[in-house]
């Protein structure tokens, strides 16, 4: 049983690899969406789950990545592999400009500033028509070439997204167990104590926030090329809330939880389609239920069950 997590991981990866052959085109499209969204959720896991920064504007950073990629490919004719790094850089730089002044302040200042930034981003995307296409957004974003292969349609994009999710998940796991990851957790648990234990609190917070945004940028760049069409409402404040709920549903301090949460919440509107117009109201209640019933998310819940089970066995 000690190898259970590894066995599970291999099983999940294997089924993820064969999934496109089995599931319908529509579900494949959703699965692809869930995969590249989960990159932004892992980003949020770094900033919120580990470092404790209440970040209500992740969608804006996804948007910066998406618009950077879309504008550069449609206007300048650059390819995905050139624009994607630029998109990451753009998201990261904007985040750096926000983070440096904001992160010296108490938590709610960051939350409100980032919320304000998300709303401002929407206003600019809607009204700076020359650059962003305004309300109509940007259409005909070209597909991706991968070593000469044309990646078009959902199957190719599914594997491309899976590839990036695996890399980001490995990076996240390595980060979590590094000096930096431990410093982040220390800040979340007790900022003052972390500071006196010679953790450079502000620097680590800035690092976490910028990393979160860089990953959001990657997610956005993939989103733009997958959807081939982006518009301002894809990156509004409500989307930031959805990304946050994905994280708390899966388990706010776990990379696996981030992926699980984004898969569930991407498919949930389809599974609950019978609710019709009631879905959004139910979604609001769902948020409260998660917070009240399992504040550590699905992964945290399973961990506490396992702990209880192990304890029960050693006692019996």
């Amino acid at each position: 049983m000690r190898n259970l997590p590894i066995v599970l991981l291999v099983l999940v990866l294997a089924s993820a690899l064969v999934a496109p052959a089995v599931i319908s085109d529509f579900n494949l499209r959703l699965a692809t969406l869930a995969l590249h969204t989960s990159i932004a959720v892992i980003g949020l896991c770094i900033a919120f789950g580990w470092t404790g920064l209440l970040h209500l504007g992740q969608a804006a950073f996804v948007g910066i990545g998406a618009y950077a990629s879309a504008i550069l490919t449609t206007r300048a004719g650059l390819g995905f592999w050139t624009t994607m790094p630029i998109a990451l850089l753009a998201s990261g730089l904007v985040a750096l400009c926000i983070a440096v002044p904001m992160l010296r302040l108490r938590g709610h200042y960051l939350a409100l500033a980032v919320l304000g930034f998300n709303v401002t981003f929407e206003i600019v995307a809607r009204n700076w028509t020359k650059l962003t296409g305004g309300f109509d957004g940007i259409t005909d974003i070209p597909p991706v070439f991968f070593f000469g292969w044309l990646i078009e349609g959902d199957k190719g994009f599914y594997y491309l997204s899976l590839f990036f999710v695996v890399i980001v998940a490995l990076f996240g796991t390595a980060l979590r167990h590094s000096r930096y990851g431990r410093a982040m957790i220390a800040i979340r648990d007790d900022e003052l104590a972390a500071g006196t234990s010679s953790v450079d609190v502000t620097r680590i917070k800035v690092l976490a926030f910028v990393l979160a945004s860089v990953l959001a940028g990657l997610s956005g760049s993939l989103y733009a090329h997958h959807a081939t069409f982006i518009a301002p409402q894809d990156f509004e404040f409500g989307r930031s809330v959805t990304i946050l709920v994905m994280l708390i549903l899966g388990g706010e301090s776990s990379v696996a939880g981030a992926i699980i949460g984004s898969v569930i919440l991407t498919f949930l509107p389809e599974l609950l389609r019978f609710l019709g117009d009631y879905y959004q109201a139910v979604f609001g209640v769902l948020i409260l239920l998660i917070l009240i019933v399992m504040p550590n998310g699905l992964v945290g819940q399973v961990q506490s069950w396992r702990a209880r089970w192990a304890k029960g066995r050693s006692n019996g």
Partner: protein
Amino acid sequence: MSAQVLQLAINALAAGCIYAVVALSVEIAYESTGVVNFAAGQLVTAGALIGLSAVAYTKFNFLPAYLLVIVGMSMIGIVFLICVYLPLRRQSVLTIVIGTVGVGIFIQNVMLLTWGPLPKSVRSPMGSGAIKFGDVSVSLHVLYVIGVTALLIIGMYLLLYRSSLGRQFRATAQDPEAATLMGIRVKQLYALNWILVCVLSGIAGLLFAPMWLVDVTSGDNIGLKAFAAIMIGGFGSVPGAILGGIIVGAIEIFGAFYVSSAFKDALVFALMFLFLLVRPQGIFGERAADRA
């Protein structure tokens, strides 16, 4: 000053009053529980829409209709206390803040199901008349908004700073445990807190509705601007919330006229960011940094 500037100024003051009332509501929740109430905007819409139905139900008897709204908003406050605040009270403040986001989504979509998506026009109890001062024409509703806001501010001041209840309220905000030891009934005060928060937001809804069209999303923007108002005026300061509200109203109305109506809200947030950069404690606010 030209008549046009005066005209804009009085409209700015009226809009600012509405932001100030919402900011006051957010500020009270923050002071007493540490929670930033992200459902404020949706509560404003709820006040406006419940008001719309109540006024129609009482056949344009505004006084009983508005009493109904206050009762309705108080009930929302109590439901919020029982279903959200009390279950989450022992968890971190961040969790409660996310809870208020969930409440906002819930309220907004229940309203969408109840009142539908179409914008509605709402009548003012003052009718649609206006008074002329020279070249400046001021609608009665605008004067009424300014008057009600002034009364609310005075009322809140007396309640919080000149009554025994207010002293208990502030004591609980500072240290709930010590307050319990002093024999203060903390739970009742939490109830009072959330009732005040909801009623104030609801009144802001009643005030704004006749000035603009109302739909289920119209409060969202008002809530966001109330947050900007608090950041500008200073977190943790009641006068700051009021002054911040009026500044935000002024930027919005003058910005829309002289700069760009598409970017008027961006101007508000730009000023908010400027304050965060240069004077994060706002005009009157608390110490903004955790450490020196």
